[in-house]
């Protein structure tokens, strides 16, 4: 439709980890975690990545987010391969792709206040420089994620799990990203709180057109939130397509078993 390159394009990505040698004289072995992955994320789109533990779904997310290195040329950000990004382009990529992790309490350093936590990436990205402006930006972010500004001086230990996850999302939003990688972002939350965070993520897409790579083992959550879904099994994407279509007419045997075992 449009000639703009997709936000993220993954082409033929394979990745393996070196295993420690069992014995000194034997060759080192490698554990292949990702095999020939193809995946695109368009601007403003929520892509669900479903898989069981050990399927490689988190590794794929980390490769896209730049936390792990991928082979040259396999991941492109707005048409440019990650390893070719330099200077302003690299900064732009680093700013544009942000993470929300599973355990909300753990991802916040317990020593710092909410304000300090959210301000850190703003400073790192150099978007806003004046202390007063940073403070205002933090206030605005808290408002965006539905937390009162009175929480600025709280520390993570004083917040509930859901509130911590809101802070983590505010921190991810602080650099005005184009893509949020949500790695099991609601799995550790209480049910009654999970819904409010899912609503928040949906709202962020509507309001700011933030794309999301939503990684989860929970079919219902992915079905609820994602526009497109990719099913990953033993390092390979076995099926992908529009969420409704994949859930209604699963083609691959693994997808079928996954859907039929959903309760």
């Amino acid at each position, binding site marked *: 439709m449009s000639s703009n390159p997709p936000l993220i394009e993954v082409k033929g990505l394979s990745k393996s980890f070196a295993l420690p040698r069992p014995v000194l004289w034997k060759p080192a072995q490698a554990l292949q975690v990702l095999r020939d992955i193809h995946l695109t994320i368009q601007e403003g789109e929520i892509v669900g990545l479903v898989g069981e533990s050990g399927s490689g779904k988190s590794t794929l997310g980390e490769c896209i*987010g*730049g*936390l792990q290195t991928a082979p040259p040329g396999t991941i492109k950000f707005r048409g440019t391969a990650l390893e070719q990004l330099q200077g302003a382009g690299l900064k732009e990529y*680093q700013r544009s792709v*942000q*993470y929300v*992790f599973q*355990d909300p*309490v*753990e*991802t*916040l*350093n317990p*020593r710092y206040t909410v304000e300090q936590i959210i301000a*850190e*990436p703003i400073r*790192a*990205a150099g978007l806003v420089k004046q202390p007063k402006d940073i403070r205002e930006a933090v206030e605005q972010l808290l408002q965006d994620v539905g937390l009162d500004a009175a929480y600025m001086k709280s520390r993570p230990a004083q917040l509930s799990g859901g509130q911590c996850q809101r802070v*983590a999302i505010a*921190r*991810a939003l602080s*650099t005005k990203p184009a893509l949020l990688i949500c790695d099991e972002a609601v799995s550790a939350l209480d049910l009654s709180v999970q819904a409010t965070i899912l609503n928040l993520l949906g709202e962020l897409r509507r309001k700011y057109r933030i794309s999301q790579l939503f990684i989860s083992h929970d079919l219902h959550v992915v079905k609820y939130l994602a526009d497109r879904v990719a099913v990953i099994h033993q390092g390979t994407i076995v099926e992908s397509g529009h969420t409704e279509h994949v859930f209604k007419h699963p083609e691959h045997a693994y997808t079928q078993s996954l859907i039929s075992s959903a309760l």
Partner: protein
Amino acid sequence: MKTLITGTVMLSVIVIMLLISWIDLPSDPNAMNIANRFAPPSGEHWLGTDQYGRDILSRLLLASQSALTVSLGGVGSGMLIGCILGAVAGYMKGLIGSVIMRAMDVLFAFPNLLLALMLVTVLGTGQVNVLLAIAVFSVPSFARLMYGFVLEAQSYGYIKAARSYNAGHAVILFRHLIPAALPRIGVQMSLALGSGILTETALSFLGLGVQPPHPSWGGMLNEAQSFMYLAPAYPLIPGFVIFLAVAGFNLLGDGIAARHKEAVS
């Protein structure tokens, strides 16, 4: 909690000794009086006198200065160097990390005292060299501690998060990693101070540390052992002070570790 209190009480005795020695000594620690050798405790000499008739209490108090400054200086500089090396090794991994940590392993292979003896033999006697020796053998334990911590911390959620928003190495190191490591460094510091004092006294016992007539706990112990039959109480006095200092630091370290564990769980 009990160990923490016991350790603190024992150490406060040592610290009070140090403070008194800075303010004023009861009498001149080097004033000899052969006529009054091995005098029993009296109003004038609270702990009696030694083989030259010098006031034991004053010598004991003055010796606390060299014991504490040398061990604190040695362990402190060892900690700084060790932590930096360990953090760098853990952060860089790869070749640099391996080289640093293998070098630490080599240092680790020598017993503390042997290493210190070797260094002092090479460098010569004197307080500064003892301090250096203590620093050298303290380095590997701190490096190992920091290396392990940095590796462990890579999996901490907030470190991963900081990497994900490209906080930069300096921010990750100084704002996240080092503050989180402080409790462990404190524990190791306390334990290392115990062995630092032990090394200082051992070296001065062998005559390699503070040179006479300046008093040192080890030196006093050495002198006292020659007169054990004449004045059996004399060696007990420096011995008890050394015990207070070493046990105090060890108990303090254990106490902090236990409390930290409690606070974490």
